[in-house]
Each structure stands twice: as C-alpha cells, then as structure tokens.
C-alpha cells in the first residue's frame, strides 16, 4: 500500500515538474522583454530592468528556470493560494451535488428501466450535459439574480456588506451549473456499473440467501459500483475545473477563475503563470487523492 502511494506521489511530482517546464517554455517563447511582460501595465523602464536582472536574463535557460521556481516559492504561489479556498469549496459542493444526483438518477433508472420516467430523465440529463456551462450559468444568473432577486448579483463583500447568508446564496449558481452539466456524464457510468453489479454472482447468491433488496443495494451493489466512479471522478476533474473557473468568473466570485481572468485582462502575466501553476497543482493533487482512494477501496489496484 505504501509502495503504491509512494509511486503515485512520485508520478505526481514528475507531472508537476513537466507542467512547470512547459509553462516556463511558453513564457520564454513569448517574444519580448520578460520583465516588461510580467509587469504588464505596471511596467516602467526601471522596474523592467530590475525585474529582468532579478529573473536573470543574463543567465542560461536552466538557471533562469531555477530562479523562476525560486520566485514561485518565495511569493508567487502563496499569493495565488489566497484565492483558492472559494474555488475548492465550489468544486466540492458542485461535484458532491452532481455525484449525488448522478447516483440517485442511476438508481432510479435501474429500478424502472425503459419506463417514461427513465426516458424523460435521461433526456433531460443529456440536455443539460449539452448546454454550454457559461450559457447555463448566465441564464440562471439572469433569472434568479436579476429577475427574481433571490441570488446576489454583486460579489459578496464588494459593497462592504459581509453577509453570510448573501455569500452562501452566491455560491448557488456556480454549484448548480456545475452539478447540472456533469450529471449525465457520471450517471451513465454509475448506471453501467450498477447493472454490471446487479448481474454478478455475488448478488445472485445474496438474493438466494434471502437478503432484502434494500440491504443488498446498500451493502453490496452500491459499494462495488462506486469503484469505477472514483476513476471517472479523477478523470473529470480537469473538465470540472475548467467549467467551474469560467462560471465562477462569470458570476463574479473571487476564486481562481476571477483572479485568472482579471490577471489576463490586466496583462499581468506573472500572476497568470502563478495561478496556472496553482491550478496545475490542485488538479494533480486531486488526481492523486482520487487514485489513492481507489487503491484503498479496491485491493486489486494495489496489488494488480
């Protein structure tokens, strides 16, 4: 077990290093003065010269890479980390609700396969899956925020009103959008796993033993159906994060998305790169956690 986790951690580290190399390469490939580029609108000739020297344009590329890494750890990453909690909360809530909906939907559909309920819910889930997330978020925002007034339209805390209820409500739209657009994708896999479990030998044995349907579902079928779900979850983190970043920036929450697009708009590419590194870090860590959880749940992965 420890060996598997250790191996996965090493792989994650390697991935992060490669990501940082690619980001660095992109930075170097951009024509122009690195100091001027990183400072963006705040650039003055003196600052640019100083930043250039600090970045070490006179050094060789490997040394420049190392000095950039040093800058990252010195202050870059921590400034990006400050906006992370909101995004992580949205991710957890959105993913959690989406997962719950997906499992519920799959359970419902496997109870009544082929029924009108099955068809309607499948179609609706698919419909939401095909909606562009930023469009759905905009619609919900316009409807619930502007027209109905249920959800705050100004970022909470912007006008100086630090109201907890307000903040809580402002979470609603990104969470709802993310959850609704991912349900279909996950419910398919849950449903396939459920059906496979229901047809397996151990279920047949349990039924022959006289185990009640409910207990059967809870103890055996669901647990075994969760295993591939963890894998799917791990794979869907990047798409989930992508959608979340955009939606969150759209409704004006102060998370990674808002920070990223703000920095891009201001042409402060230094911040952009820091945020990108943090996002990469988050994705890699989440993947790692998902993999380790899968290994904990399924011994075949550890020893297979």
């Amino acid at each position, binding site marked *: 077990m420890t060996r598997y986790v250790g191996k996965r951690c090493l*792989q994650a580290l*390697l*991935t992060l290093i*490669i*990501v940082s190399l*690619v980001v660095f390469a*992109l930075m170097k*490939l*951009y024509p122009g003065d690195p100091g001027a580029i990183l400072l963006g609108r705040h650039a003055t000739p003196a600052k640019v010269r100083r930043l250039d020297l600090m970045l070490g344009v006179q050094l060789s590329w490997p040394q420049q890479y190392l000095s950039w890494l040093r800058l990252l750890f010195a202050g870059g990453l921590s400034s990006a980390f400050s906006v992370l909690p909101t995004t992580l909360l949205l991710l957890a809530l959105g993913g959690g609700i989406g997962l719950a909906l997906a499992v519920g939907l799959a359970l419902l559909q496997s109870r009544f396969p*082929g029924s009108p309920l*099955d*068809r309607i819910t*499948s*179609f609706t*889930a*698919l*419909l939401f*899956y*095909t*909606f*562009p*997330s*930023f*469009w*759905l978020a*905009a*619609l919900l925002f*316009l*409807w619930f925020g*502007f*027209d109905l007034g249920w959800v705050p339209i100004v970022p909470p805390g912007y006008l100086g009103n630090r109201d907890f209820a307000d903040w809580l409500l402002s979470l609603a739209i990104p969470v709802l959008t993310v959850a609704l657009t991912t349900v*279909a*994708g996950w419910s*398919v896999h849950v*449903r*396939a796993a459920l*059906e496979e479990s229901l047809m397996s030998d151990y279920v047949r044995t349990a039924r022959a033993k006289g185990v009640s349907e409910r207990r059967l579902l809870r103890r055996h079928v669901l647990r075994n159906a969760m295993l591939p779900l963890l894998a799917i979850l791990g*794979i869907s*983190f*990047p*798409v989930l*994060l*992508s959608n979340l*970043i*955009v939606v969150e920036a*759209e409704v004006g929450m102060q998370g990674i998305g808002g920070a*990223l*697009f703000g920095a*891009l708009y201001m042409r402060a*590419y230094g911040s*952009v790169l820091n945020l*990108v590194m943090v*996002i*990469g870090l988050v*994705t*890699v860590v989440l*993947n790692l956690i998902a993999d380790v959880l899968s290994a904990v749940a399924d011994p075949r992965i550890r020893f297979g």
Partner: protein
Amino acid sequence: MLVMARSSQEPPHSRTRPAVGRPWRRLLRHRLFWTGCLVLLLLVAFSFVGPMVWRRTALYNVAKMLTPPGPGYPLGADALGRDNLWELMLGGQLPIVTGFATATVATALGVGAGLLAALHHRLEGPLMRMVDVVLSIPQIIPIIIVQSLFGDNVYTLMGIVALTLWPATTRLVWARVILIREMPYIEAARAEGLSNGQVLARHILPNSFDTITACFATQFGSSVLFIAIATALGVGLGPPWNWATMIATSLGYMSFNDWWLVIPPGLLFAALIMSVYLLTEAVRMAWNPRLQSGLYTP
C-alpha cells in the same frame, strides 16, 4: 434453424464475417439515427443555406434596437438593430465547422496515440506519461494562455483545443486495445501470417470501432464547448459571427427581458452537440447490437 451460442472468444467483426451488410441496415432503421441526422442537417442548412434565403443586412438600425420578436423580426433584433435570426444563422457556421475539424483532428491524434501505446511496448510508457501530464491540467488553461499570448486566429485555436483534447481519447482507446490484443483471434491471425498492418485493419480497428465512435462524440462536444468558452472570453474565434460571441454580448444587457438574445444560441449549441451525440450512439448500437451503454439508451 440451428441457433449457435456465441462464444465470447469469437471476434464480433472480422473479414471472414463481413460486417458490411447488416450494420448499415440496422442503422437505417434506428430511430436515433434519423433524429440525429435530421437535427444535424437542419442545423447545417440553417447556418449555411439560411443566410442565402433570409437575406438581411449587417447595417445598424438603431431605431430598431432590442426589438422583441414580432413582425419583420421573427427572433427580434440585437442592440444594433440587426435581425437576430439572421445573426443566429450566420453564427452557426464557425462553431459547426471548427467543431467538426477540431474533433476529427483530436480523435485521429488520440486514436493514433492510443494504438501506438497499446501495441508498441517501448512507446507505451512515454506516451501514457504524456497523456497523464496533459490530462492533469484543466483544458481551458492552455487554451486561454496560448490564445492570448501567441495566436489570435481560428487555426491556432483549433490547434490548441485539439492538442488539449486528444489524451482523453488515447486513454480510452489504449484501455480497449490492450484487451483486444490479448484475444485468441489476434494470436490466430498472426499465426496465419498476417502482417501487423493487416491485423490492425482487419481485427483491431473493427473491434475498437465502438470506443472510437464514442470518443468522437465526446470530442465533438468538448471541442464545441471549449471553442465556445474561449470565444466568449474573447480569445477565440474572431469578428465573424458565432453563437458564443452572441451569448457573451447578450450578457452585457443584463436582463432577462432580452431573452431572445440569450436563449437561442445556447439551445442551438445544445442541438448541435446532441444531434452528433445521437448519431454516434445510433452508429455504435447498429455496429454492435449487444451494446447497452450510452447517455440515452431508451
């Protein structure tokens, strides 16, 4: 007629049992196929033939700005007084073309890499490592970075979207092909003396057709979505009309009163992605009727 039990070792499709006849006929009888086809053809006609039929001008007509749907303006007018329906028609051309182009490239790359990874032991490690690295970043990030720094045209956009999307296909294709390569019929084919290329064409590809088609559907949805997101953020497709820009600009009017500006583009996106999805589902089910899974099985 003697009904023989199908052994699981028997290849569903191979040259000795040509799959050419029956899947086509099954496909043509499939309800999903016709629905998907119809919607897709309608959308293509709407976008490419529509503007030729429904001629409107791009000139501003500020007197008519933000007119609700009514006589003369079936879907209303935008903030500059131009006909919304006409804009919607023109707006579909870019998403449809770029969506298909990007999805095809991404699927081709992904399938190629997946086959290579599954069939060449030396390349398997590096390729799957590359897949892991690319998949560990949210796709939107490289798209935005590359587009805002390096390229502002359609081609770089399509390129970078394809480059971020191909690994998803690779992983699925690889998982499928490593199962196929262990099958007895592959061993039998090699024993017959078939070359690598022949084994690939006659056995491996037909049996992974299901996975590849499913991947294309997902890639199409993802391509259209990411191109739309990039465009809505301003780093994607340029000035010529497209649905994503229409959504982005309509948000500026910040009210649901102008619903005719906000709602149709998103619905058209959904129709586009869904039609391709239904089509590919029908193709998959026609190819292998034993198959069950899909987003819309009923």
